[in-house]
C-alpha cells in the first residue's frame, strides 16, 4: 500500500510534467476571450429577462390596455396610475440589479481576492438583491394578478365587477397562488440554492474562528 508521502512524490513528478504542458497561443486566447464574453452576455441577458419578467409584463399589459381601450378614460387613468406606481420600483430594481451584475461580471478585482473575502462579497450582493426582490414581489404579485382580473372583466370572461365580486376574487386568488408558486421555484433556483451553498462554505471557513478576517 502506498502512503500519502509516496503519493505526494508522485504528485510532484506530475506537477513538473503538467506545468507548461498546454501552451496557449494568441489565436486560442483570442477565441477563448470571445467565447467568454459571449457566454457572459448571454448570462446577463438571461438574468435581465428572468429578474425583470414580471415588470415587463405589467408595463406591456398596461400599454396594451391603454391602446386597446383608448377613450375609456376611467380605465386608461387606472392603467396610467399602475405605470406611475411602478416606475420608482423599477428604478430601484434596475439599480440593485446593476450593482449585482457589476459585481458578478465586471469586477476583475474580486477574483483576485482571497477565497473568504470573495465569497463574503458575493454572498452580500446576492443576499441584498434577494431581500429587495422578496419585498418587491409582495407588490408585484398582487398588481400582476389584479391586471389579469381586469383583463378578464374587460373582455367579459367573468361577469361585471358590480354584479359579481366573488368570481373575480376567486380568479385573483388562483392567479396569486400560481404566481407565488412560480416565484418560489424561481427564487429557489436562482437565489436560495446558490446562497445556501455560499453560506455553507463560509460557515465552514468560519468554523473555530478560522477566517483571517
Amino acid at each position: 500500500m502506498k502512503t500519502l508521502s509516496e503519493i505526494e512524490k508522485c504528485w510532484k513528478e506530475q506537477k513538473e510534467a503538467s506545468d507548461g504542458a498546454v501552451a496557449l497561443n494568441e489565436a486560442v486566447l483570442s477565441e477563448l476571450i470571445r467565447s467568454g464574453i459571449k457566454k457572459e452576455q448571454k448570462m446577463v441577458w438571461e438574468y435581465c429577462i428572468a429578474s425583470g419578467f414580471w415588470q415587463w409584463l405589467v408595463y406591456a399589459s398596461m400599454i396594451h390596455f391603454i391602446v386597446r381601450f383608448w377613450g375609456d378614460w376611467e380605465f386608461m387613468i387606472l392603467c396610467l396610475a399602475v405605470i406611475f406606481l411602478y416606475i420608482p420600483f423599477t428604478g430601484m430594481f434596475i439599480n440593485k440589479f446593476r450593482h449585482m451584475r457589476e459585481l458578478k461580471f465586471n469586477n476583475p478585482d474580486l477574483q483576485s481576492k482571497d477565497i473568504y473575502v470573495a465569497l463574503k462579497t458575493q454572498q452580500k450582493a446576492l443576499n441584498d438583491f434577494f431581500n429587495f426582490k422578496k419585498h418587491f414581489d409582495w407588490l408585484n404579485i398582487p398588481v400582476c394578478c389584479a391586471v389579469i382580473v381586469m383583463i378578464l372583466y374587460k373582455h367579459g370572461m367573468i361577469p361585471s365587477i358590480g354584479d359579481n365580486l366573488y368570481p373575480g376574487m376567486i380568479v385573483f386568488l388562483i392567479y396569486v397562488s400560481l404566481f407565488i408558486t412560480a416565484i418560489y421555484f424561481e427564487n429557489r433556483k436562482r437565489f436560495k440554492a446558490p446562497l445556501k451553498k455560499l453560506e455553507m462554505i463560509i460557515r465552514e471557513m468560519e468554523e473555530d474562528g478560522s477566517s483571517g478576517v
Partner: protein
Amino acid sequence: MKADLKNEFLNNLNQHTGIIHRVCNSYFRDYTERQDVFQEIVYQLWKSYAAFNNESKFSTWMYKVALNTAIQHIRKDRRTIQKDPINDLSLRIAVVEERAYSNDDMKMLYAAINTLTDVDKAIILLYLDEYSYDEIAIITGITKTNVSVRLVRIKKKLEDKLRNNQR
C-alpha cells in the same frame, strides 16, 4: 499595447497551466465540465490580469483566481452550464488529462481529493504544490494556525480514503 499585454499574459500563463489542471481535476469529475472550467479560468485570469500588480507571485495570484472561479462554478445550476469547448484547446487539455489520469496513484489521489469539502480541497492542493502555511492563509483567507490544524485533519482523511481504495 494590448498585444504586448497579451503576450506578457501568455508567457506567464503558459508557465503555470498545470495549476488550472490541478484545480479542475480536484473540483470536477466530469471531463466536459473540467474543460469548460479550464476555459472559464483562463478567461477570468485574462479579465483580472489588469488588476494583477506583482505584489504576489503570478502563480499565487493565479491560484486565487482559479480557486475562486472553480468554487463559483460549483454553485451554478448544472442545467445552465454551457458546454461549447474550443476544439484546438480541448485537444491539448485532453493530452495533459490523459497523462495525469494514466497514472493509477494520481487517479486515486484525485478521487480521494474529490471527496473533500471545497475549502479542504483548496488547502490540500496548495499544500501539495508546496505553498507555505502563510501563503495558504493568504490565498484562502483563513488563519495560519487553522491551516495547520486543518491540514492534519485533511491528511488523515486522505490516508483513510487511500487505504480503503487500495483494499
